[in-house]
């Protein structure tokens, strides 16, 4: 019997030591003038969420379901603020009808999606949405930038922020599971 999480290349997410790229996510959002961070938590977003909560200039919005975050971002823009939605790939499926708000109103939109069911996945229940995430976003009119290497995170995010808030585009940055690392199943 094979033990879980014992592979030689095991990378586990340790919430006590932030990966450099995770710090880069928050710094890019901050530099991009994002003032509302709406989220359904994911381990890959843990650092960004923690920093958003700690930052007095940013309003964090914890959501019960990801589609709320699409509407929160729309309301933020109506009121003159930039928002980001942080979610896991499974949450993209929850958003589909609410994405119609973005195209109907030609709203700027930025979401950062941490991937599951994408690379070295352990849980088969993640695979359906992991396989469909990019296609679902694109079919709903959202431009997708995918990142699998740490050095690409900040530049890609900065580009997506410009596309969203300068050109009014709808953009998603997918953070691949190769970047995030395997989930640690053993405690």
């Amino acid at each position, binding site marked *: 019997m094979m033990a879980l999480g014992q592979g030689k290349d095991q990378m586990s997410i340790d919430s006590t030591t932030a990966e450099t790229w995770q710090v880069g996510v928050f710094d890019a959002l901050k530099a991009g003038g994002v*003032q*509302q961070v*709406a989220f359904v938590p994911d381990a890959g977003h843990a650092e960004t969420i923690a920093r958003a909560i700690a930052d007095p200039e940013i*309003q964090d*919005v*914890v*959501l*019960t*379901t990801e*589609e*709320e*975050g*699409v*509407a*929160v*971002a*729309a*309301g*933020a*823009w*109506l*009121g*003159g*603020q930039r*928002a980001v939605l942080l979610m896991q790939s499974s949450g993209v499926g929850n958003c589909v*009808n*609410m994405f*119609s*708000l973005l195209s*109907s*109103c*030609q*709203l*700027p939109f930025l979401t950062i999606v941490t991937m599951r069911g994408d690379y070295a996945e352990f849980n088969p229940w993640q695979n359906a949405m992991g396989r469909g995430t990019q296609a679902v976003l694109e079919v709903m009119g959202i431009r997708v930038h995918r990142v699998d290497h740490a050095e690409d995170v900040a530049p890609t995010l900065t580009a997506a922020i410009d596309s969203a*808030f*300068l*050109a*009014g585009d709808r953009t998603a940055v997918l953070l691949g599971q190769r970047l995030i690392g395997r989930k640690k199943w053993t405690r």
Partner: protein
Amino acid sequence: MRTDTHPSSHSAVVRIERRDFVADLVARAPAGSLFVSGLGSPSYDLYAAGDRDLNFYLWGAMGGAVPLGLGLALAQPSRPVIVVTGDGEQLMGVGSLATVAARNPDNLTIVVLDNGHFGETGMQQSHTSRGTDLAAVARGFGIRNVHRVERPDQLSELLAATNRPGATFGHVLVSPDEPPRTMPNRDGSFLKNRFRTGLGLDPI
């Protein structure tokens, strides 16, 4: 045979006419209030009360009225934000009441016009006719200023409650009668840019 358990069918002597109520709400809300309406009848009611640049009418995105109002309230803390929606739209996005309570902005007021039915689709009974009490739901999610409005004169109490700390939830029991449709503009991009311009913001 199903029994209609909608509270208005038992207790209200004077059933609230939704259009009159929304007209009074708009007339008595503080100047410069920002209104968001949920799809269907609430958008027709808000438009019938008089079109304003600072009205944002939803024609879709069911369940999105309250979270959109939350993002707006957080972005515009000095202005009252009033979300007017129906029982069906609120039920679809019911978790957003927890999301509101977690931030609890003073300037956000949610007014649910509860007729106990899905008015836009053939007047099927909604959950509020089958046992759900949206005021209790809002309280359970952590919203502290929750007011049930069963008579038109209770609008004053609801407006007074909006001055207390935290978000306000008004559960307004309205007649299931359907007033004539009065339809606002349905170009979302136009409504968005008009709204932003009304706040002194550029379209992009």
